[in-house]
């Protein structure tokens, strides 16, 4: 089958032309929406940060130069460390808040874990997740575990990186063990990172 140059030109040319027009439209939409999306993400993180510390008058400047051993320490516990924020209460350092990603039951759970200067957890809040509605989402919404406390509240006051294990010292929400394990991994990772920060 002899393929004429003109034919290839017409076919490839049309496809390329259409692709370019589409790419242009996309670039335009991206320009219009990128800032808004970034602002929404920032707001989500700020809300999650405010939830992990109980005192008012807190600031959370981001730590830009995170040492590699801190990231590695978190990795070893199964959590990927993406951001570190310093917790400043009244201008004084009161620990760190770690944005950690750990795998849950239906994909990744992004959470913020606050750890104070004594290496104990001050709070856990979820930034984003895709857990099953009505099951894993119960953990994300801080519903009561089999022991009665909130699934996320139970981490407050705990310490010891790597020592938190579901069914031993952490209670699971009935039917949502994997999601609870995901959050536990993240908290262990944050505790390990806090140790390495000092």
């Amino acid at each position, binding site marked *: 089958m002899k393929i004429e140059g003109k034919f290839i030109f017409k076919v490839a040319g049309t496809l390329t032309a259409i*692709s370019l027009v*589409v*790419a242009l439209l996309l670039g335009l939409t991206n320009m219009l929406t990128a800032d808004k999306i970034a602002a929404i993400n920032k707001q989500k993180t700020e809300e999650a940060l405010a939830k992990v510390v109980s005192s008012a008058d807190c600031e959370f400047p981001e730590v830009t130069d995170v040492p590699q051993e801190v990231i590695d320490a978190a990795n070893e516990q199964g959590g*990927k460390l993406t951001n570190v924020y310093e917790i400043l209460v009244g201008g004084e350092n009161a620990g760190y808040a770690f944005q950690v*990603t750990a*795998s849950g*039951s239906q994909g*990744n759970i992004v959470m913020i874990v606050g750890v104070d200067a004594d290496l104990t957890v001050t709070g856990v809040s979820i930034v984003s997740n895709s857990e099953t509605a009505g099951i894993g989402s119960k953990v994300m919404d801080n519903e009561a575990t089999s022991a009665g406390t909130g699934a996320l509240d139970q981490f407050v006051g705990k310490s010891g990186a790597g020592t938190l294990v579901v069914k031993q010292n952490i209670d699971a929400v009935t039917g949502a*063990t994997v999601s609870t394990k995901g959050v536990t991994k993240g908290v262990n990772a944050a505790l390990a990172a806090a140790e390495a920060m000092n």
Partner: protein
Amino acid sequence: MSVTKLLAISLGAILTNNFIFSQFLGICPFLGVSKKSDTAIGMGLAVTFVMGLASAFCFGVNKILVALGLDYMQTVAFILVVASLVQFIEMFLKKSMPTLYTALGVYLPLITTNCAVLGVVLLNVQNDYNFIESVVYGITGGLGFLLAIYLFSTVRERLEFADYPKAFEGFPIALITAGLIALAFMGFSGLQVWPM
């Protein structure tokens, strides 16, 4: 990246988070090609192959897009990669395995629109897998699809002779059967041999 993580990904893709029975990806060809076991196996293998290759290529494409700050072009770029891959495989099968080519018929180009293929590529990005993990997820996801479609085809072959209300003929009874298999697969959800 550790071997246990790869094993955990594989176990997840085949059993606990099966692409068909847990994640609903790849239903159309699942229902369309599962009437006979041998076509089902052929389709399953073809899809596995495409998913593995697509994961590999799209990993590279994604790295380039992210480096250029063009994240929003992911969907367009990925689907173009998948479409071209399927085109090549079609030409390859036509030359070297013509019987399989004719058996798959119109369903071969339909692998392009198979949610499982685009789905696995998008999930690789979402889960932030590295290259080996992406390819492993792609291949084992395909194997999970193969397992699902083969199991289902054996059931459907027996369904031909079963007695059910006329209104359920065709897709409804197939869907209900698939639902029951999905219920069975739910039993795997507690299976965590390797921590992930």
